[in-house]
């Protein structure tokens, strides 16, 4: 059994519990062990870099150093924000051995030798596990599912470790392996608005609207996300956006906006693997997948 370290971050313990539940279920089916990093602290997200760069590197440095101490060589971060922040700190700390951040970490028993790999679960599933193993585990092939895979920004940029920064395929390929139709559309990695939906709502919601418009145009009946913030924006703000931009949707589609379920990509995999749907947290969603899900 392969062991992966697990860094949940704040979202997977609150607004995106369904992501955690489904991720754990999928890893279990694939015989992958997920061990939560003990006493992890908040990654600081992108916000911290705008306040103090050294401290931003150091808070993520603490997580990396602890992962190393706890013997977790692979650290899986399902949130794109955590993933990018941990990767950024990892790169910096490895490139600057003996600088003041590393030295300050040493003084509080957080020596970091740079031996941890930061991974996204999509990367683990598409490269470590691979498509044949995923296809082999399918118990409920996803007929009728037309999935728009939405990658968001920080999972594929600026680090292009496992997929293309503008035209990624890894999630689409997994969906195909599960028997679903992968819907191609141009905004796969365009920003979902991130925290702007909460800070500068007018701008944030416009970005969400553009994604829905594009996805609806290409005929998807479900959206898959790989980041809790993308999921929050598309799932929770969907109703608001559909009301706010009602006229525009009407114009574009010639009909009224049809609500579209937005799910964590691991929920889809778990469902295809035959995991009991109650263990996948579908009931947490604002728009239910309806007929797509049976049993």
């Amino acid at each position, binding site marked *: 059994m392969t062991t992966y370290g697990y860094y949940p971050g*704040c*979202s997977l*313990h*609150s*607004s*995106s*519990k369904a992501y955690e539940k489904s991720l754990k279920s999928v890893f279990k089916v694939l015989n992958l062990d997920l061990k939560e990093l003990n*006493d*992890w*602290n*908040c990654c*600081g*997200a*992108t*916000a*911290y*870099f*705008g*306040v*103090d*760069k*050294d*401290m931003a590197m*150091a*808070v993520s440095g*603490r997580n990396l150093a602890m992962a190393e101490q706890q013997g977790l060589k692979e650290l899986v971060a399902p949130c794109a924000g955590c993933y990018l922040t941990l990767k950024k700190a990892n790169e*910096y700390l490895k490139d600057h051995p003996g600088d*003041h*951040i590393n030295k*300050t*970490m040493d*003084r*509080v*028993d*957080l020596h970091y030798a740079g031996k941890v790999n930061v991974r996204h679960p999509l990367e683990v599933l598409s490269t470590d596990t691979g498509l044949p193993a995923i296809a082999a585990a399918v118990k409920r092939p996803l007929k009728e599912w037309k999935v728009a895979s939405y990658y968001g*920004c*920080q999972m594929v*940029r*600026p680090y*292009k470790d496992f997929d293309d*920064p*503008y035209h990624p395929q890894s999630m689409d390929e997994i969906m195909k392996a599960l028997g679903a139709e992968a819907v191609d559309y141009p905004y796969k*990695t*365009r*920003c979902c*608005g*991130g*925290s*702007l939906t*909460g*800070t*500068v709502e007018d*701008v944030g919601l*416009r*970005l969400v609207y553009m994604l829905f418009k594009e996805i609806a145009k290409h005929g998807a009946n479900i959206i898959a996300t790989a980041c809790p913030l993308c999921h929050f924006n598309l799932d*929770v703000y969907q109703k*608001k956006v559909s009301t706010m931009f009602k006229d525009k949707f009407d114009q574009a589609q010639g009909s009224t906006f049809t609500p579209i379920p937005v799910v964590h990509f691991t929920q889809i995999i778990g469902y295809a693997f035959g995991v009991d749907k109650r263990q996948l947290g579908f*009931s*947490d969603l*604002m728009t239910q997948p309806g007929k797509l899900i049976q049993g």
Partner: protein
Amino acid sequence: MDVMRTVKYEAELDKHFGQRIMKHSGCDKISECIQCGTCSSTCPVSLYMDFTPRKLMAMVKAGFKDEALRSHTLWLCSSCYSCTVMCPAQIKITDVMYSLKRMAIEEGIYPKRFPTPALAQAMADIIAKNGRNSEMGVVMEMSLKTNPFGLLKMAPMGLSLILKGRMEIRDFFHRDKINNRKQLQDLLKGLKQREAQ
């Protein structure tokens, strides 16, 4: 008729501003900007900015410090890294934005009622205290500082999240704490002391 000069004289610029920024990590290539505008065209929020990323790069290079630090652009940047990946001169524009944000906060000249810097600060404060954040706790803190009435508007959404079990009342008071807070606080203190030197 009141007339106002709309053009800045060279003597009024902060000539070394660009060079100072270039010393920050990730910002060393600003001088290689060729003003092609790839950043602005790939940016999903450039059309709502007061200065597009291309203009901002030119302003930084030329020494328009005040204008650059007061710009809303910094706080609209959502860190999607599209400009950084696309830039033919390999300027890490997102990192330049971070540097400008930090300077604006340090000098206290960011737009005061703008919620993004308040969000960033709230997040940093809670981490320093507890080591962990709750999403809702951060939003609460930010709203209290910038737009308390906005919280009322958010109430229906909050309620639906609570009903779905995706948010808990206790999240508002950010009770989630790490065990070894002393270690994290000593780490941050150590870095602060160095900065003060």
